[in-house]
C-alpha cells in the first residue's frame, strides 16, 4: 500500500520513550546532568516567560518617556527596569518593539522557522510554528487576524514583520479603554503572549488574566 503518511499507532508513546532514552544516555555519557531538563524547563516556566513582556508593556502604557525609549532601543530601555539580569539573554540579544496605534497594527511572523524573543515572550505557542500560519500570515495577514478575532478597520495599516535575520521583534499592543485607574501590575495581568505577537488585542476585562504555566503546557 502506497501511503507515506501513515503513522505508527504508538506514535506518542514512542516519541516519549525516545526522548527519555536520549536524555538518559546523554546523562550517562556526561553530556548533560540529571537535572538539566528540569533546570531548563523551570527557567522557562518561572523566569523567562511572557510575564516579563507583559510588565514591559504595562510600564510603557503608564510612562510615555519609557515607551519612547523602548521603541528606540528595546534592550536598553528594558535594562532600566527591575528585572533579573537576563532580559538581553538567549534569543533576546537584539530586540525591536513595534507599537500598535489607532492607525497601525503590527504582526510578527517567522516564515523560515520560529524566531521569537524568549526573554520577554518566553517560548512560542504552537500556532506560531504552524506552517499554515507562517504561510498565510505573510500573504493574507488581515484574513488571518480576522480568524484570530482581530477585525481591523480598513483604514488601519497592517505591518507584517518577518524575522529572518538577527533581530527578534515583538509588539507593544494598544492599551484598552476602561483601564484608566489600573496600576502596572493590574495592567500587566491583561497582556497575553498573543497580544504581544499581534494576533490579539488586549481587553480591559478578559475572561482570564495573568500567567498560567499549565495553559502553556508546562
Amino acid at each position, binding site marked *: 500500500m502506497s501511503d507515506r503518511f501513515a503513522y505508527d499507532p504508538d506514535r506518542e*508513546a514512542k*516519541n516519549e520513550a525516545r526522548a*527519555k532514552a536520549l536524555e538518559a544516555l*546523554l546523562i550517562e555519557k556526561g553530556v*548533560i546532568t*540529571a537535572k538539566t531538563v528540569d533546570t531548563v524547563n523551570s*527557567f522557562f516556566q518561572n523566569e523567562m516567560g511572557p510575564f516579563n513582556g507583559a510588565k514591559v508593556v504595562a510600564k510603557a502604557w503608564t510612562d510615555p518617556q519609557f515607551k519612547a525609549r523602548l521603541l528606540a532601543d528595546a534592550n536598553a530601555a528594558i535594562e532600566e527596569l527591575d528585572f533579573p539580569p537576563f532580559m538581553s539573554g538567549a534569543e533576546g540579544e537584539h530586540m525591536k518593539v513595534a507599537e500598535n496605534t489607532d492607525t497601525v497594527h503590527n504582526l510578527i511572523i517567522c516564515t523560515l522557522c520560529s524566531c521569537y524573543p524568549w526573554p520577554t515572550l518566553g517560548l512560542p505557542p504552537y500556532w506560531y510554528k504552524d506552517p499554515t500560519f507562517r504561510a*498565510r500570515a505573510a500573504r493574507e495577514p488581515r484574513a488571518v487576524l480576522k480568524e484570530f478575532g482581530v477585525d481591523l478597520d480598513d483604514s488601519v495599516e497592517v505591518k507584517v514583520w518577518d524575522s*529572518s535575520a538577527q533581530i527578534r521583534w515583538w509588539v507593544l499592543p494598544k492599551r484598552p479603554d476602561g483601564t484608566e485607574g489600573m496600576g502596572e501590575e493590574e495592567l500587566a495581568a491583561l497582556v497575553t503572549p498573543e497580544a504581544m505577537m499581534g494576533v490579539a488585542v488586549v481587553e480591559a476585562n478578559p475572561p482570564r488574566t495573568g500567567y498560567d504555566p499549565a495553559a502553556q503546557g508546562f
Partner: protein
Amino acid sequence: MKLQHALGGLEGLGPIQGPETKVFVQPWEKTIFAIHVAMMGLSKHLDLKDVPTAFDDEWTWADLRKGAEAMNPFDYFRYRYYEKWLGGISGFFVQQGYITAEELEEKTRQYLADPASIKTEGGDPKIDEQVLHYLETGDSPLRDAAITPAFAVGDKVVVRDIPPTDHTRLPGHLRGKTGVIDVVYDGVYQYFCSTGPDGLGEPMPIYSVKFEPSELWEELHEDGNTAFFADLFEVYLEAA
C-alpha cells in the same frame, strides 16, 4: 525549490488549527526542548572555561535548521515541531558517535517496557550552571567591525536569487523581488556558521526591507493598507 524555504504565501491552505496556544502539547516535548537548549549552552564556540561536559561540538540554531531544511518536505509537514527536533537531535548524537543507534533503540524499548527502569542520576552541577549562564547572557551575533553598510534608508534593492544550498536565511517568497530599505540596523551581525555560496558567515550589516504586497504576491495580494517588512542580511541584497 526547497519547500521549507518557500512557505510564505503558499496557496490553498485552510484555517489555522485551533489555534493551539500551548508551547508544549506533550510532556516529552519539554525533554527534547531542554536538551536542545543545553546543547546550545554547551556549544564549543562559547567560552566554556572548565565546564565538565562530554559535549564537544558546535550546536546552534543553524544546525537544527539545517536538519529541518534537509528533511523530506512531506515529512516536514507531517511531523509536529518537536517531533522534528527529536529526530534531528537524536540523529546528531548518533552521527557524531556520542551514542549508537542500537543503544538508543535499546533504551527506548526499555523505557516502553518499564519507564521506572530508567534511572537518570548524576552529572556535574557546573554543566547546568553553564546552560543557565547561556540562557541569561545569550550569544549575541553583533560584532565589532568597521564595515560601512552598502545601502541607506530609502534605497531601492532587489533580493538576490542565490542558488539553494543546505542552509539559507533567505525566504523563497522574496527572491527576485524589489523593496526599499526601511531600517539600517546599527552594527554588523554574524551568522552562526558559513552558508557557503549562499553567502552568510562573515559579519555584515542587516536591514529591514519594506515590500509592497502587490510586488510580493502579484494578483494574489490581499486588498488593504498592508506592508511587509523582512529582516535581511546584506549579502542577499543588490541595488535595484
